């Protein structure tokens, strides 16, 4: 399965939120979008076809978002990550900073999705797509 668009993976256990984000992004007709309800599922999806960027909720059942990011990055399944979290108390850990996540990549729910799309496009562009 080949697609001309960058591949995105949305990892969020809240099915409605995941679906709304995916729906919103699909309207751009510029991304190849997949979804996963947990870190484990996300890794499984990525193992079939890697992604260019993952939007990850930190609080997940089972494996948490940070563990998922580190695992996916470590296996070379995805190079970039955006955090989409309900927690305001979160500070980026050294491990996350090490894989290239910055404060600008942290989005706190509820969030304006257009800002999220702007950042996604910015990151994909900077990579020179």
């Amino acid at each position, binding site marked *: 399965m080949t697609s001309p668009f960058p591949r995105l993976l949305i990892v969020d256990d*809240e099915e*409605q*939120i995941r679906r709304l984000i995916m729906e919103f992004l699909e309207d751009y007709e510029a991304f190849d979008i997949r979804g996963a309800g947990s870190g484990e599922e996300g890794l499984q999806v990525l193992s079939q076809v890697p992604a260019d960027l993952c939007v990850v909720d930190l609080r997940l059942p089972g494996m948490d978002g940070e563990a998922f990011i580190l695992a996916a990055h470590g296996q070379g399944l995805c190079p970039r990550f955006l955090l989409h979290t309900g927690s305001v108390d979160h500070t980026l850990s050294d491990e996350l900073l090490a894989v290239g996540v910055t404060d600008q990549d942290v989005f706190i*729910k509820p*969030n*304006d999705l257009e800002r999220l799309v702007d950042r996604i496009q910015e990151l994909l562009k900077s990579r020179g797509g």
Partner: protein
Amino acid sequence: MTTAPSHRSLASRLSLFLGLSSAVLSMAVLGLIAGVYIQRSHAHMGEHAQRTAAFLAESLEYPLWNLDLDAVQAIGQALAQDHVVGLVEVFGTQGETLYIHQTPHAILMERRAKVAHGGQVIGEVRVGLNDLELRSTLWPVVLTGAGLAGLIILLQYLLHRLFFRPLLDKPFASLDRLITAYSAGDFSATPPQTPYAEFASLFGLLADMGRTIERQVDDLKASREQLSLALDAANDGLWDWDVASGKAFFSPRYYTMLGYEPGEFEGGYEAWRSRVHPDDLVRVERVLASCIDGELDVFKAELRMSGKGGQWRWILTRGKVVERAAAGRAQRFVGTHVDITARKELELRLADQLAFQQALMDTIPYAVFYKGADTRFLGFNTAYEEIFGVRREDLLGKRVLDLEYLPPADRAAYQAEDEMVIANVGRVQKEMPIPFADGQVHETLYSVSGFRQADGSPGGLIGVIVDISERKRAEAALRQSEEKFSRLFMFSPDNITLSEMETGRFVEVNESFLRYHGLAREETIGRTAGELGLFVDKRRRRELVEALEGRSRVENFEVEVRRGDGTFGVGSMSSQIVEIGGRSLMMSILRDITETKKMQEVMVQTEKMISVGGIAAGVAHEINNPLGIVLQATQNLVQRTRADLPKNIAAAREIGLDLDLLRRYMQARKLDVFITDIQSAAVRAAAIIRHMLDFSRRSESKRMVCDLPGIVRKAIDLAQSDYDLKKSYDFKRIRIDMEVADDLPEVNCTETEIEQVILNLLRNAAQAMATSDPPVAEPCIGIRLSALPGGVRVEVQDNGPGIPPAIQRRIFEPFFTTKAPGVGTGLGLSVSYFIVTKGHGGSMRVESTPGYGTLFTMDLPTEDART
């Protein structure tokens, strides 16, 4: 003692001896004559025998040579014819008898002769002569001698009868009479006259002797009378014991002493022995035996003897051997008895007394000792022995000067003190350290007193050593404790008072009390709290006393008190009744808890804020997800109704929908407005939630050294340019005063947050002053920045209407607001509070007096003070 055998006459004896001596003399003369005669006869006979033997030998020469035995026999018979010859014997060469002639008369002497022929011995002869001749000549001599002797004796006897009687018998008889008279005790007889010098001197001597004896006897009689008198006077009994016979003489007093009539029993050793106490007998008899054997000269013993009624009397007996046999064994023993029963009983009582005294001393748990007038130890008790590790026998008789275990200087000093106490019959009592046998120096109370003897002279001293180490320790501890408690009382930071229970008058108060109420001690003691106006409500004192009734103490009784500076304070009082010196006193401790109460309120507030903050953050987090769904769903709605989105166009075309018509429909039915309403409401809700979440947000990473005056000025600028403030609250009209201290320390902070806090305070102040009723004449906000030790204080003060106390307490609570709905979220101050306290480690509080304005104070610590 002399025995007197039957007397014989000296005179007759004398005459008999004279006769005998004469007879012996004459016999001796006669014997001599007879001896000489016999001597001469012997010599003559010896010669005769020699001659006869020689003649015989010569006569036998040839017969023997010729062995003519008949001739020999004939010669022998011839010789035997002589009646003097009693024995003739001829022997041959071999010694064999050739001839023998023998008569029965005794042979007086014999001679032998050899028979020789031509120089050769051919035999031997023996010739014996008998005494016939001698006897025939001797007898007349003997008879003559005997007659002569008898005659002499007879003559002697006659001479004696004639001369001895007048010369000897008569003087001796008169001598005998004289001596007999003397021996009978009659010294009056005068010696008879005598013509002979020998008797005259003898009689003279005898007469002298008689006179001497007479005088001595008189003396003896006198001294015996004296002795008797003395013995009687001394009440002594006398005994005179003849050891050999066992008989004895006992004087009358001897008997009466034992309760008998004089002579009631016969005196004697057994009579004495049977009356001696069995326990004393062995001992006394041993001494007695020593005296009798001569080992001891004087006998002395104390013993018990049974009296007539069987009662025991104590007797002191003393005696002396007055006669001893040649072997040294006593023969006569004389002595006295003294009744010492009374003395002995006294002694026994004294011994009892001494035993009691020792027991008494031993019962005393302190070391007790006593010394005699010579400063020597007489005794001490067991406590003394134990304490000093000494034994009675080692110390008795010693002076303190002799105690080698003491240093010499001490010994001399103690000795001098002993002597002084004894001489003055004085008393010394002092506390002194003394080393005990346990090796430790004990604090003691040393006390000695001199005492007098019955005659008033110094008798010695008695001492007691009491170990007061424990007491001293206790005293010292008590003193220290008293001092400690006294200090504790005086310098306690709490107000402590002692007052009379009934009257309430102060008996004692401490420094803190005086300082607290601004009182002097003189004006306080003896007055009551009511008189001094210490309590704001005078009835509280009575309530306290009532609360104390039936209980020993009351604690944390809160009371409002008047301080020395005129302000009021809240005091927590703890009281209890104490009995001191028989008086019932109330001891009260008052602690000013005004500040504590305030602090408590702040603490409660803080706790409340933290928990409310926690809840808020939790709630916010949970609401975020649904809120996100709402927001994103509306975003999707907006996006999917857009007419320019290719996907929308494609989808609409597929179902034949005109997107433009849809847009117009939505506008006509205001669907787009509803969507916008939903969106803005969700955004607002999200903003509120964001604020709530800020409570627990840590922003340390964003803190840096900040310019507080600059931040304040920026906040003032923002407030002045805020449209809402300008329009609704007439911010321009408010005078802003700003004071900044020069020496502000550097403080780390997040500028935007502090700016937000100050802006928030300015907004609140402006709103309060604008809505004040009555209006504030000259609204004014003062901002002061000042240095604190380890921090900076920011004060924002307004002269608005102030905040009622009830509201002050809740002012920092989230969602607590007095503003109209929509005007304020009720989060401003609580967010400010968390920014300052949680985000910056500082503190924030409000003080307000209704009608006078409000002061917000926040203290921000420096980095150093925070860690």
